[in-house]
């Protein structure tokens, strides 16, 4: 009886648990205790999202109304297949990053700030999960700001003073983005008098010619594009990823932009309707060129980076381009490719940033020159970098191959062979920049006088390798992810007349 009650409240608990655990963390002065609470919370979140996936797969979309107010009056949480899938990605990464965090945070952050660090991390987790689960447009803005404000704080914990300017830059651009989103939601409310997404989707159908609706669409899309760092709105991202503490880079690189992509998908396909977005607003003519330019320039710029974290940040920009490319193709295969890459990119970037965090733990730097000859001294860590890199390039038997494969299938489906060639070329560029790391760390001697670095501690290696193995596992046994992404994409595109 009580278990059934608990199960029916899972959508609320998914957000409420980290939200309540966050202030608890702030109160706990012993820093190991704060870490323990945060880790436990992330595991509970993972458990909840696994259960939600099972519930959605068994019984269809879940709707949870707060305080007994039926929608569209009250705030409603909606977990559909896509939502459950993204919830799983976010909480899975959190559950792996937090065990990793203890040693890494001890090395990189002042002891008196540990409790606050974990508080901010939990708030960020809460915000990201909330964005995904909510069915209310204004509520989404609130969660967007919860996650953003905590992300700015997390980035500013970086040891380097450039972390402060990176955080400031992100704060300015992120706030402009969020405010644009708010304007768009306001215009939608003026038009329809509702904020519930499902209700909005019905009420805007007869208003497709309205200038206000077009403006709202543009404001929301530009606002979220700032958050997901779509070229040319990406300027905040490389600095933010490069100078944030390792744990934060690993966490936000594999979750924050993915959640922003989710918001774009949610608004285009579930709310505005893809026929409105692509036929009326000609969205493909905007997204496609930006995605292509983004993929290409970011990949090329990545080759010339000396800081490996910054290199991966540019690579992330290219990967976001792939996701937007899939969306802009306006087909089920394209959307499937994007959603697959959402999951797969989280796995590969999580593994890579965590491995680099282990490098930083031992040698205190992630400059390429400093990593020379490290392959022999830290075999497991650099092994994870190589495996993650292979996945990033898209070598068969890794998840990267699966996403590239579907993306190329989707592009060819449209008959755009040149674009398929471009995807292959940019994959080769990825090979170039990952090879630079491999070449330096395996084939160059350790610089004279450099510290002899031993292997990183097990608590750093184990979560990293779990993600690496996930890269391989989901690259071989693709049933689970393709099934989920495929049916979510079909539901999004087919769910509308």
């Amino acid at each position, binding site marked *: 009886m009580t278990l059934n009650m608990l199960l029916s409240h899972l959508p609320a608990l998914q957000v409420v648990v980290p939200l309540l655990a966050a202030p608890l963390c702030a109160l706990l002065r012993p820093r190991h205790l704060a870490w323990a609470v945060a880790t436990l919370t992330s595991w509970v979140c993972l458990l909840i999202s696994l259960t939600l996936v099972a519930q959605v797969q068994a019984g269809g979309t879940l709707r949870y109304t707060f305080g007994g107010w039926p929608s569209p009056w009250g705030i409603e949480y909606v977990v559909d297949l896509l939502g459950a899938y993204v919830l799983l990605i976010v909480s899975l990464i959190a559950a792996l990053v937090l065990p990793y965090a203890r040693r890494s945070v001890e090395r990189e952050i002042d002891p008196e700030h540990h409790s606050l660090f974990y508080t901010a991390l939990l708030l960020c987790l809460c915000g990201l999960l909330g964005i995904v689960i909510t069915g209310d447009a*204004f509520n989404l803005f609130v969660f967007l700001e919860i996650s953003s*404000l905590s992300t700015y704080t997390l980035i500013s914990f970086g040891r380097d003073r450039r972390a402060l*300017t990176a955080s400031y830059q992100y*704060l300015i651009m992120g706030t402009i983005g969020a405010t644009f989103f*708010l304007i768009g939601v*306001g215009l939608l409310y003026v038009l329809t008098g509702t904020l519930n997404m499902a209700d909005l989707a019905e009420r805007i159908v007869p208003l497709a010619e309205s200038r206000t609706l077009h403006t709202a669409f543009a404001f929301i899309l530009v606002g979220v594009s700032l958050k997901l760092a779509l070229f040319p709105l990406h300027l905040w991202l490389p600095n933010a990823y490069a100078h944030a503490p390792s744990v934060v880079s690993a966490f936000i690189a594999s979750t924050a932009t993915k959640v922003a992509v989710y918001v774009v998908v949610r608004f285009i396909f579930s709310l505005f309707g893809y026929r409105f977005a692509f036929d009326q607003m000609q969205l493909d003519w905007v997204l496609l060129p930006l995605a292509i330019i983004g993929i290409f320039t970011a990949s090329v710029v990545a080759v010339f980076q000396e800081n490996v974290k910054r290199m991966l940040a540019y690579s992330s920009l290219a990967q976001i381009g792939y996701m937007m490319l899939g969306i802009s193709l306006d087909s089920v295969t394209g959307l499937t490719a994007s959603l697959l890459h959402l999951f797969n990119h989280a796995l590969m970037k999580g593994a890579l940033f965590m491995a680099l965090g282990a490098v930083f733990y031992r040698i205190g730097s992630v400059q390429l020159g400093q990593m020379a000859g490290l392959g022999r001294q830290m075999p497991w860590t650099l092994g994870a970098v190589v495996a993650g890199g292979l996945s990033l390039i898209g070598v068969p038997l890794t998840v990267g191959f699966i996403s590239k494969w579907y993306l190329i299938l989707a592009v060819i489906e449209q008959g755009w062979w040149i674009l398929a060639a471009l995807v292959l070329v940019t994959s080769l560029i990825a090979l170039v920049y990952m090879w630079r790391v491999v070449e330096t760390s395996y084939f160059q001697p350790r610089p004279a006088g450099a510290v002899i670095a031993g292997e990183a501690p097990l608590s750093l290696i184990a979560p990293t390798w779990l993600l690496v193995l996930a890269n391989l596992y989901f690259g071989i046994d693709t049933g689970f992810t393709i099934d989920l992404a495929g049916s979510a994409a079909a539901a999004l595109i087919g769910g509308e007349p």
Partner: protein
Amino acid sequence: MEFLGHYNYWIVIFLMMTGFYVVISHSNLVRKIIGLNIFQTSVFILYISMGKMPGGTAPIVAEGVTLYSNPLPHVLILTAIVVGVATTALGLALVVRIKEAYGTVEEDEIHAQDESL
């Protein structure tokens, strides 16, 4: 007449563009935050305007009152104001720490210091 009838929305647009311009054009980090505040304030006025009915009162059941203002946008914007205050506080806190680390709050000077490394 219609132009003047929507004067509150013209104020919104004016404030929005002013704030946006200040954020983009100034290199002083504190001024950027002020610009951001003006930008956000314009959205507050947008929301408050949309809930207002000419001649309407507060939505309280009372005899002889039939015309109410819509309270929902006003409540929403209270939340957004809180978010705005939090953003400003965080932004200014960052500026204080930037001043401690770099000794300046001018963006070009900070950039020059990072370049020289």
